[in-house]
């Protein structure tokens, strides 16, 4: 921690400055500037990988400045083994989002790039915030830019999709604010996430807080049955928006569970495990079945996200080393693979102006390079050994196996179904026989698109073949999270507030609530 350089602030404020600078440049330079800013941000993020000390479970690159004095709210940042991979993934994906919007966004390009950069700042802020209010500020600040991305630059049904996304996520997260305030009074009048994680809360309070957290995070993940905004939002969003939604926004829900629900509310989490696992398995199987039936490529990938995120929540809530590490790894993997698949759909949409599988049949012949990439990413998504998703899903299933064999068997069905819907999609899109009028002169990938996809291929195989550097960075953090959870046995029912207070009206006076 001797290193006092404010890496994380730089990471957050660089895109914001870029968004400001965009208002000064001409429309035609907007793309270049946005690309430069996102690349610069990635360059800032990259050294963290090496500077990060994998043996330490502490927060690193910590910044701690008072922001609001009463109540004490701090501008407090830091990363650990769970947030570091997500920060790097976000920073790595942003240049690709700019690249894929290079030609597909035609109206108000400058505004689009500015909104994209604001999104980047808010997303990175969510992953590095160590103060609960600061976290909430970033969490909510994302809503408006994402609403605009879907609503202004989206597809034909964008208005409906945008407001649905907005209201769903807002309705979920307002209860989070109540929960944060309740935690403040029970946890010794602090919003510090690490300090709040050290407090044992009465069991009844934990139950309610868990439900409030659940409302916010489950909508974002999205867990079955709160997933209905997702297909609409994904389908209508422009490609960059879909990538951000799938790769980063969905991770925030899972990140919320592992950062807040598990360490702060261990008893409630343990009590809820069967329910959470059941919802996860339903999501895995239901999402996969829905994906099988889709005729729209984006919808297919959207439902596959529901299924894949089911693995993540399953891994988190079996609450053992393998499960959580697998889940965090799977968060990164899903970000890479699904992001790549959305990029692929965006690229083909620019050419054929249709996302329907029926309109994009037999691409192997006119676009061999494109077809190669699509097959690669599809194989990665279905968890072929050697690719990244295999490692993550395998770890999750190992973790689940330690918890329940039946659940493992059910969850494995999801992998089989994933193979079914993805290979069926590949069979038609890549190798199908196009109808005669359909075989136009589709241009294969150009250099820009090539450059968009190649980094992701590298990541797919790197994590697939050498997952150890990544996993080793998570290891001590996950161990510590589990230790934090184990520290609390059963919440003492002799606790003054637990015994007296009915669960709804938390008479949350700090003095009583403190253990």
């Amino acid at each position, binding site marked *: 921690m001797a290193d006092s350089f404010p890496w994380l602030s730089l990471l957050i404020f660089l895109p914001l400055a870029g968004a400001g600078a965009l208002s000064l440049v001409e429309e035609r330079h907007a793309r270049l500037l946005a690309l430069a800013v996102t690349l610069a941000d990635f360059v800032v993020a990259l050294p963290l990988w090496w500077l990060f000390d994998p043996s330490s479970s502490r927060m690193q690159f910590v910044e701690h400045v008072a*922001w*609001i*004095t*009463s*109540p004490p709210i701090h501008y407090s940042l830091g990363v650990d083994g769970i947030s570091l991979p997500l920060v790097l993934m976000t920073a790595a994906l942003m240049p690709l989002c700019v690249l894929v919007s290079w030609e597909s966004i035609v109206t108000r390009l400058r*505004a689009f790039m500015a909104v994209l950069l604001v999104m980047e700042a808010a997303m990175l802020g969510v992953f590095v915030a160590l103060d609960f*209010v600061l976290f*909430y*500020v970033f969490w*909510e*600040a994302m*809503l*408006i830019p994402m*609403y*605009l991305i879907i*609503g*202004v630059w989206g597809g034909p049904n*964008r*208005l409906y999709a*945008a*407001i649905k996304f*907005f*209201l769903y996520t*807002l*309705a979920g997260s*307002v*209860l989070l*604010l*109540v929960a944060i*305030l*309740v935690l*403040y*009074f029970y946890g010794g009048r602090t919003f510090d996430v690490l300090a709040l994680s050290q407090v044992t809360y009465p069991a009844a309070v934990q139950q309610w807080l868990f439900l409030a957290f659940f409302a916010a995070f489950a909508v974002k993940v999205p867990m079955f049955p709160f997933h209905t905004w997702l297909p609409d939002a994904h389908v209508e969003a422009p490609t960059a928006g879909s990538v951000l939604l799938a790769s980063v926004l969905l991770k925030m829900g899972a990140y919320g569970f592992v950062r807040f629900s598990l360490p702060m509310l261990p008893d409630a989490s343990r009590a809820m495990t069967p329910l959470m696992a059941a919802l996860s398995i339903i999501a895995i199987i239901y999402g996969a079945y829905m994906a099988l039936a889709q005729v729209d490529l984006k919808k297919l990938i959207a439902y596959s996200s529901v299924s894949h995120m089911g693995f993540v929540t399953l891994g988190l809530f079996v609450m053992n080393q393998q499960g959580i590490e697998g889940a965090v790894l799977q968060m990164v993997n899903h970000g890479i693979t699904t992001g790549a698949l959305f990029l692929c759909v965006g690229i083909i949409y620019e050419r054929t102006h249709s996302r329907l599988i029926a309109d994009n049949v037999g691409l192997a012949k006119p676009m061999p390079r494109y077809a190669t990439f699509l097959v690669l990413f599809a194989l990665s998504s279905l968890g072929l050994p050697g690719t990244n998703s295999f490692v993550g899903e395998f770890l999750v299933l190992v973790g689940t196996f330690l918890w329940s064999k039946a659940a493992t068997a059910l969850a494995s069905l999801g992998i089989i179904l994933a193979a079914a819907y993805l290979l069926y999609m590949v069979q038609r899109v890549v190798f199908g026989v196009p109808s005669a009028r359909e075989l136009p002169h589709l241009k294969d990938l150009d250099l820009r698109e090539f450059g968009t996809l190649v980094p992701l291929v590298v990541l797919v195989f790197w994590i697939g073949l050498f997952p150890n550097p990544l996993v080793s960075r998570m290891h001590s953090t996950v161990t510590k999270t589990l230790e934090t959870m184990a520290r609390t046995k059963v919440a003492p029912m002799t606790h003054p507030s637990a015994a007296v207070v009915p669960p*709804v*009206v*938390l*008479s*949350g*006076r700090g003095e009583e609530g403190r253990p």
Partner: protein
Amino acid sequence: MTAYGTDLIIILPELIIVAAACLILILDPLTPRPKKELLAWLSLGSLALCIGLTGGQMGVLNLPLSAFSDLVVVDGYARFWKLLLYGVTGLTILMSLPYLKMEGLHLGEYYGFILLALSGMMVMVSGADLLTIYLGTELMSLSLYVMAGLKRSSPRSLEASAKYFVLGAFSSGLLLYGISLLYGLSGGTRLSTIAGALGARGFDDPMLLIATILLTVGFGFKLAVVPFHMWTPDVYQGAPTAVTAFMAVASKAASFAAFLRVFVEGLGGLKADWSMLFVLLSVLTLVLGNVVAIVQTNIKRMLAYSSIAHAGYALIGLVAAGRSAGESGGTSGIASVMLYLTFYAFMTLGAFAIIAMFRKGGLEGDEIEDFTGLAKRQPLAALIMLVFMVSLTGIPPTAGFIGKFYVFMAAVEAGLSWLAAVGLIFSAVSAYYYMRVVMLMYMREPEASAAEPSHLVPSPALSFVLACAVAGVIIFGLFPTPVVNLALQSVLLLK
């Protein structure tokens, strides 16, 4: 005689404002039409003087001073509200400059009435006696009745004025009746006398219950809380927009200030009882304000219902103050109301400033549909409106979020987590109608058939008002600490 002189010095800001108002009314007939703007600058000058006077007392000299044998008190609480009211009045006057010109209302007395209303509000926030507060309320209301009807060519404006007057007079009667009952019960109208006589009696005496309810009804009309909100949409829609902004912000702030003082300083012993009453009112207000706003097509009406809903959020703070037991004295609850109304002032004033100068043809474009496609025509105007709508929804990093944060924090502290949850759920509901404006501005193409699309008429005064409002919303959203500390210093203590 010397003591009388001290009294006059204590209320010097009020005297300056009244003198300036009278001067304007005298000068008005003598000023030729093109020079009427000078009267506005005169009133701004008097405001600047008052800001200096009151602001100068804020720091180390923030001592409570009472005058006229405790009829009036100038304490930190009063100074806080006065500064807010000066600011709001100043911005309203600036906003009115281009607005009156656009509407062809060359009325110098307009500025006189604004200042008279302001002096009434200042008396309200400084009143330590029910009758002083009543007099202030009446001075404010009478000026506002006239101002609501200033657009004499518009039937809606006249209707608004008449409706406001009838209902306002009725509510004043109820207020006065409540005061007279309290006088009968306690033998005085000083808030301190009432507090001393009532002690912690509770509602065991039915007369006390009736008196409290009558006071609540009387103030409820001024605050526009459900079920005493009926006049609000019609009056807000009909009145000239600058006046609407003034009513929605300044009159609401002053009424809340007096309301808080009466219930905290005068009826503080009954806090357990009145907070139950206000729980009911705040929930009703939140539900009705937010739900009915959804179906509005006129943006002034929508903002009227939104201002009703915001009064509901502010009431939560008062409920929290009443319910919080112990040594903290409900400080956080009362401070949260003060903060909420301060932040609300900036965003609502800004939104109304845009509506006032939003023109379709020569007329005010006050239908929500008129905002369709604004982002294409005037990106900056649309962005500013977006900021206000986001802040009204209460999404960070805007002042609206900070205001809600403190209110809900006070509620949770007082053990009313469920009320905070209800409030927040309805703020999610409110997102629907605020975001509809954003949706129309950014995501819909304007109809090609419209001969002259609606647009914001720029002017230096408007730019200044909008700059202040946006700066307030953003800066207080990011760095609220100074205002928070100010509010905490000047808060009333609930004994």
